[in-house]
């Protein structure tokens, strides 16, 4: 008898504990949701950039989701690349301006036609490929969609999809 009662006790205590844990999971879910980015943050994740006024070999830096975006209109002597954004006759290099090594912003050196990161000496060419130093991969290309002479960042258009499929960007 004594042992039976003991067993039943444990069972009820454990049943209650288990059920409470279930409620705890629900509460944890609500807490997780409270940490999520706010709708207004997500809605601000789209930026439209007009490329029509861009000049060759001059780096434009825009801002998208708090990060710098490099836009470089390529001159004829720069090597074309699959990573280029092509609008009509013009080719642009467009990427997130953060070094893929540790996230510093590389500077553009127009006379040398390359990017140089001051933090650890990483270098990228005008197509964003790493050419020297510690960066493990090319500059990352954000999702974009071409609308006439404008780029909408944050939205994946067919050109971006093609790059993704080809494994040019992650």
């Amino acid at each position, binding site marked *: 008898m004594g042992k039976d009662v003991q067993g039943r006790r444990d069972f009820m205590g454990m049943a*209650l504990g288990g059920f409470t844990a279930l409620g705890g999971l629900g509460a944890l879910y609500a807490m997780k949701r409270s940490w999520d980015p706010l709708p207004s943050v997500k809605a601000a994740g789209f930026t439209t950039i007009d490329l029509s006024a861009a000049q060759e070999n001059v780096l434009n830096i825009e801002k998208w989701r708090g990060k710098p975006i490099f836009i470089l209109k390529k001159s004829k002597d720069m090597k074309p690349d699959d990573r280029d954004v092509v609008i009509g006759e013009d080719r642009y290099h467009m990427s997130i301006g953060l070094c893929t090594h540790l996230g510093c912003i590389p500077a553009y050196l127009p006379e040398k036609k390359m990017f140089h990161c001051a933090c650890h000496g990483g270098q990228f060419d005008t197509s964003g490929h790493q050419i020297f130093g510690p960066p493990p991969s090319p500059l990352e290309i954000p999702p974009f969609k071409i609308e006439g002479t404008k780029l909408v960042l944050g939205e994946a258009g067919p050109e971006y999809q093609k790059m993704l499929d080809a494994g040019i960007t992650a």
Partner: protein
Amino acid sequence: MRELKILAVVVFFTLVTYWGVEPFAHSQMHKHVEGQEFIYNGTADIKGAEAALEKAKAEGTDTAAAQAKVEAKKAFWADVEKIAQLQGNAANGEAAFATCLGCHNGAGVNMGGVIPPNLDHAGSLYDKNYLIALIKDPAMASNVDHKYEDTMTHPMGSIKGMITDDQQIADIVAYMQEKMAGEVTTKEAFDEACARCHAMRYAKTTQLGDTPEFKHEKDALAHEIKVLEEQELVKTYMGKLPPDLSIMIRARSEHFMETFVENPQTQLAGTSMPRVGLNKEGYEKVKTYLEEVGDPSKPAREAIGPWVILFFVVFTVLAYLWKKSQWRDLH
């Protein structure tokens, strides 16, 4: 059982306290205003004028003017009733409506204090009697005639000189009810009925309509200045800037909102807010919009509430069983 008796005592005193500080206190703090079911026939207006007459008599002030007011209100709403009986012709009304388009054209230009409201859904939002009354004499219809020595000086007062034929009024209203009706979204209802005076910053709306996204701070500031200028005009016209309605739905009771919209004078005597003339459906739309913006968690509350309560009911049952097993051999 003793514990239940103790519980009954605790619950009793808790409820008495609750009753005292909530329902009873609020019944003492707020005067009761009879709702009119969104029917506009002047009853409340005439009552109000009569009360003013009584007051004038008691205080020995100008009773003649108060008497005249009562007569004027009675005559006015009797006329409205008469016009409501006329058979309106929508086709004729369309032609006559051209007069209205002179101002109600969506140009967004302030005229005499406010931007004339968009009438796209006037036929479904507003009450028929109210529309008739409004065309006949805007200040009387919206029960703000106390603001005007001569109701002609109301921003829309000139209509009295332009449309004088009763049949024509009936035609215009018939036209609006036929053609300027149809489905209204909750936002449209708010924009058309309220937004010319009331901003709603949580919905990014001002007296100038929805605030666009600006890329450059200069453009945003320029827009803000335009809004401030418009608000200044509204303020001059209304005496004070009508409040932002973002969370008004939680700041006022349901009863207050309803009776206030129906006839602002009953809740805030002397207010410059005009009666808007929303019919029951129109009011429901506006109220829904105020809820969507000001109390957006309502659907979530209603969806989750029962589950949380059910959880604690089961929790309590399990806890009771646990307690019983623990206390079994104690007595």
